[in-house]
């Protein structure tokens, strides 16, 4: 350091581009059970170590190990089987929607393949009255909350089964009844809204919990900072989730400053944070239970970095083979969440290959029959638009239609 150097612009590059050997050496891991479960009222200061470690419950043999497993309690087979089913449904639904897109029946979709444990596990731990502030890649929240598949597909196909009457781009749902806030196309805006919603819950003397969701890439937005800051200052009952799936369209996590684990961002705000294996359904359940309890009991917000991998393309407009090795998904060290939970259930004597196959058939039938019904109401095929009512486009801009819009509708003859 005695020699005079000059500054150079550092432009981060992912470890591998197409044609190169994928690597995840930069993702810090920990063995299952190695990270201890703190009390739910742990001080933020005492969670600092968690940012560079990884909470995992399932070991390589599919056994649930460590104090997070204890915190979760006796693995109730029903909850886990329900989770498996939700994940399988989400995955098959994704496949069908991608196919429907290739067939021109819908115009946009974002699959969450490989990330299903996070949505399906977290949702299981929420209570009625709580509210998710989700992104477009979280169909699993809806599936596991019991949102009707026909309505889900109605939005995809722009027909009258769409509760939103064709107003919003798929898959940007809204269902207050299912604790699912209206999805925005504008990234990160919902993150600070969730904090505001939780502030309202506290002001209201309530203990309803808000769950904020964001992708690794979108943490770069200013609203992410706003959310952490407001959570830090007002300490409302909010769980701040980051789904770190390693990619933001073609940009790897390094472009979002992800050379430092995102969980670390919490420290500068005095917020508690955890870093979790997002492909481990039991870890998701345990940590969700912990974080939601902490928030609900007024011990303050917690930021959770869920570590996972976007096995799918970004969306139906994307072809990831252009910017990352095709072999990357296979190299992902945390495996597939469905396979891992299945193995655990079988190891625990709660499941079998036969039952799995039977479940698969049932799920596919359910999804296919919903799709049949949904498609019968019209799809987006041919580029002419959906069959949702035209008049809807003038309704709901305001509670009452103002004069100028009334005149426009009149002139349009709609």
């Amino acid at each position, binding site marked *: 350091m005695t020699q005079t150097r000059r500054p150079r612009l550092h432009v981060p590059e992912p470890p591998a581009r197409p044609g190169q050997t994928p690597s995840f050496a930069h993702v810090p891991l920990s063995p299952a059970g190695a990270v201890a479960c703190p009390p739910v009222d742990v001080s933020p200061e005492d969670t600092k170590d968690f940012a560079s470690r990884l909470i995992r419950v399932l070991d390589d043999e599919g056994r649930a190990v460590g104090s997070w497993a204890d915190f979760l309690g006796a693995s109730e087979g029903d909850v886990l089987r329900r989770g498996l089913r939700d994940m399988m449904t989400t995955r098959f639904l994704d496949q069908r929607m991608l196919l429907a897109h290739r067939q021109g029946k819908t115009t946009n979709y974002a699959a969450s393949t490989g990330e299903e444990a996070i949505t399906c596990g977290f949702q299981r731990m929420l209570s009625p009255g709580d509210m998710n502030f989700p992104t477009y890649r979280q169909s699993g929240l809806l599936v596991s909350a019991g949102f009707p598949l026909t309505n889900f597909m109605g939005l995809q196909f722009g027909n009258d089964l769409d509760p939103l009457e064709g107003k919003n781009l798929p898959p940007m749902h809204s*269902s207050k009844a299912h604790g699912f806030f209206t999805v925005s196309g504008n990234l990160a805006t919902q993150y600070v809204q969730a904090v505001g919603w939780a502030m309202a819950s506290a002001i209201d003397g309530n203990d309803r919990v808000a769950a904020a969701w964001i992708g690794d890439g979108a943490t770069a937005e200013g609203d992410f900072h706003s959310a952490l800051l407001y959570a830090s200052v007002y300490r409302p009952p909010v769980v701040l989730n980051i789904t770190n799936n390693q990619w933001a369209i073609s940009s790897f996590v390094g472009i979002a400053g992800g050379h430092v684990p995102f969980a670390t961002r919490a420290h500068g705000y005095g917020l508690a944070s955890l870093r979790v294996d997002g492909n481990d359904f039991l870890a998701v359940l345990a940590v969700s239970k912990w974080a939601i309890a902490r928030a609900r009991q007024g011990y303050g917000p917690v930021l959770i970095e869920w570590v996972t991998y976007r096995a799918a393309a970004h969306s139906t407009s994307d072809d990831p083979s252009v910017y990352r090795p095709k072999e990357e998904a296979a190299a992902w060290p945390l495996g597939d969440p469905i396979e891992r939970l299945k193995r655990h259930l079988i190891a625990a004597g709660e499941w079998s290959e036969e039952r799995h196959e039977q479940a698969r058939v049932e799920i596919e039938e359910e999804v296919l029959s919903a799709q049949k019904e949904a498609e019968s109401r019209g799809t987006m095929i041919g580029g002419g638009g959906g069959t949702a009512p035209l008049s809807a486009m003038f309704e709901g801009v*305001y*509670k009452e239609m103002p004069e100028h819009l009334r005149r426009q509708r009149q002139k349009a003859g709609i």
Partner: protein
Amino acid sequence: MARMTMIEAIRDAMDVKMTQDRRVVVFGEDVGYFGGVFRCTQGLQAKHGKERCFDAPINEGGIVGAAVGMATYGLRPCVEIQFADYVFPAYDQITQEAARIRFRSNQDFTCPLVIRMPTGGGIFGGQCHSQSPEACFTHVAGLKVVIPSNPYDAKGLLIAAIEDDDPVIFLEPKRLYNGPFDGHHERKIVPWAQHELGEVPEGHYTVPLGKAIVRRPGADVTVLVYGTMVHVAQAAAEEIGIDAEIIDIRTLLPLDLDTIERSVAKTGRCVIVHEATQTSGFGAELLSVVQEACFYHLEAPIIRVAGYDAPYPYAQEWAYFPGPDRVGRALRDVMEG
């Protein structure tokens, strides 16, 4: 009936609603213990508690973003942006979120929210304390945009805004806070206590959103105006002795088309005045709706008097500000035109 400044009227509106409705919460930069840099929230924290009136971090996007969350929960936040010039970090949350939550969720969620902010110049605030950004909001479907010109309206409109089920941008002409400034900066300011619109009823009343009001009936020319410029236009018309019908727009979005059209159909002439820069200002929309509806009544071109298309200067404020002289000249021109 009490005589109030516009600051007191605005504070009173929030007080009335906070007292009536536990869902109403007030926050923003310096609004809590201190009561706001213009003192509009003074006393509200002491009276209604820290959880319903509190300071916010200096982060306007966060203020509005958090308020959107609260509104969708079911509260009725009424937030303050310290100056309208500082609303832009919140522009995304206002235009892409608050304005569209009802529509994009097909009314599954709604966003009753008031965003108050001092607007306009006349206080030597330079480019960063003088802007009039109303036109940045009037283009946005889903928003309502309100600008009062006196204490009576300010209270009634603010109560109506808080009770409204949609997001409202509430612009407070800061040059009017203490008196009806008419552009004659060289004269001593008349306090609201000496103005009939400084008389503000106690308790609850509303001035409906979406309704303009004829401030001065007249036969010769319609003047469309709002905020500080209402008083400037009145002064200008009196000084040159033109029988102008002065319409205080009050709600810019949605616009009271009937009142405007009726007047111009009668007078056949129209002058539009605002302080914001002219190009793509709200005057362009006013001019357009008048032209579209009253074309065959018009006897002269509609004239816009507005801020010059430059950032708000500091030392040259009075040459920049569209005062009674410039408005008077336009009134003469439109009569001759």
